[in-house]
């Protein structure tokens, strides 16, 4: 996030540090916050002008107090950590399986051609579409959720690993072989670093799809997680909890993406500038 110098208050004059002035200042400093502020303002206005039952719409303030309540009683930590553990575990497992599979397919031209259409076909069948079958096979369990999330995550990882390996110029490998490189050397020095930026892109896409699939699966499986939190709240008409849960779902995704996945991407892609072309 970039803080522009123009956003700094002009001069050191002691302006009244009212809270509204502070909000305005931070909006100019962080344009990323602007749409959020607009959303909250519209929401507030709609709620204030209409006559809504708390079973239909609540004010942003009510959501804030519901959020504090859930945090103070440890409920939020419980549900959020279930979801985060699930996506983390699924991501690790998908990488451990998806990257080697993507490699095996990528280095074999025939296999790559054979699988490309199939992988696109699978990408069309979202993880959520597998839920009915998964529930029949594995019941309302964490296994069902995990299977759905891994399925969703692993397809883009395999696909991007495969395309990453195939995009490496043939000459890289040939030149190294004429320098006496073994197969293992080629993987370590050429294929792995060459495919890494693409693998990270696959992981990033997969995390996005996987997070959505996770919430959906949790809503049906009802064994914890943020999806369970918001779907359970519906039963009791707790609109404040539903909206709180939705906001947390969005925030956690942004945090995971910005703090973990994007830095890895920047590191690999920026360093090897040539690959960006």
């Amino acid at each position, binding site marked *: 996030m970039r803080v522009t110098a123009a956003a700094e208050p002009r001069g050191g004059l002691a302006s009244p540090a009212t809270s509204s002035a502070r909000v305005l200042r931070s909006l100019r400093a962080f344009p990323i916050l602007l749409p959020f502020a607009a959303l909250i303002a519209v929401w507030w206005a709609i709620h204030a002008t209409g006559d809504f039952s708390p079973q239909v719409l609540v004010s942003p303030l009510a959501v804030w107090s519901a959020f504090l309540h859930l945090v103070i009683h440890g409920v939020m930590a419980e549900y959020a950590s279930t979801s985060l553990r699930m996506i983390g575990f699924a991501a690790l497992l998908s990488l451990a399986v998806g990257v080697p599979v993507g490699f095996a397919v990528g280095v074999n031209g025939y296999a790559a051609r054979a699988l490309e259409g199939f992988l696109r076909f699978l990408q069309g069948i979202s993880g959520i579409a597998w839920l009915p079958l998964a529930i029949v096979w594995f019941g309302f369990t964490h296994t069902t959720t995990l299977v759905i999330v891994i399925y969703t995550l692993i397809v883009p990882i395999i696909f991007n690993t495969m395309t990453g390996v195939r995009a490496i110029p043939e000459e890289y490998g*040939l030149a190294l072989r*004429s320098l006496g490189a073994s197969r293992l050397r080629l993987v370590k020095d050429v294929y792995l670093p060459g495919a890494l930026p693409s693998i990270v892109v696959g992981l990033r896409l997969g995390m996005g799809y996987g997070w959505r699939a996770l919430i959906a699966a949790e809503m049906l499986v009802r064994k914890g997680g943020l999806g369970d939190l918001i779907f359970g709240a519906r039963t009791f008409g707790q609109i404040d909890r539903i909206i709180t849960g939705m906001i947390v779902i969005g925030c956690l995704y942004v945090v995971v993406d910005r703090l973990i996945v994007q830095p890895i991407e920047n590191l690999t892609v920026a360093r090897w500038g040539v690959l960006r072309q």
Partner: protein
Amino acid sequence: MPDDMAKSTQNKIVVSGFRHVFETDDGPVQATDRVDLSIRAGEFVTLVGPSGCGKTTLLKALAGFIRPTEGSILCDGATVLGPGRDRGVVFQELAILPWRTVRRNIGHGLEIARVPRAAREATVGRLIELTGLAGFEERYPHELSGGMRQRVAVARTWAADPDVILMDEPFAAVDAMTRLTLQEELVRLCGATGKTVFFITHSVDEAVFLADRVLVMTRRPGRIKAAIDVPGRAAGRDWESFKIDSAMQAIVEQVLRLVREERGATAPAASAAVTK
């Protein structure tokens, strides 16, 4: 080329009856047809010919990346079965690794050969000096000009110290001025190290300037159509004197004629009648 038989003891590379057919979606394509050639140890041989005549196929077979459909390829009397450290390759497309610095690219072959760090650094340092890359050791390829990247590719191959160096239009992608400099550097580098070099090019000027001997290939399926000796040591050449040397320019004209005939030929049979 029967006269090569007499010198076979000092031949580094002997290709006999090399024919290569590769499969495409439109059926088999014959890239080369009974190529015979031999290259003496320490000789700089260039190969010119029309596009798609099988030059690169021949180079790939010498490197061991592909096997002949028919015929044999010997290096030091042993059949070439695959790529090896004794035969380095410099490609036209930048085959240096974008995620390695100049130093680590040049030292890559030595790293693979498990040469101890101190010896490796000494060799790399010497080649960085020889190729004018001093001061750029820690740069990544994308931070270099095209000419410098190609110097890294050349230095990497030389650092691994192969007996034979195979070059596939290595200077085709750099600008004309840089190319002249790189060519002069290459003849000096070869003079200093005494490598056997097989060099493919489209440019007749380049072929004559660099070579002890120029080979001309027919259009596809390619065969060696003529071999022209270039007198004098390549190591001493520079472009200024080369351009006004009438003996050299006569050779350029001769090679140009031979290549042009191939470009204009309407049937492969037409080229069969042409001899040296």
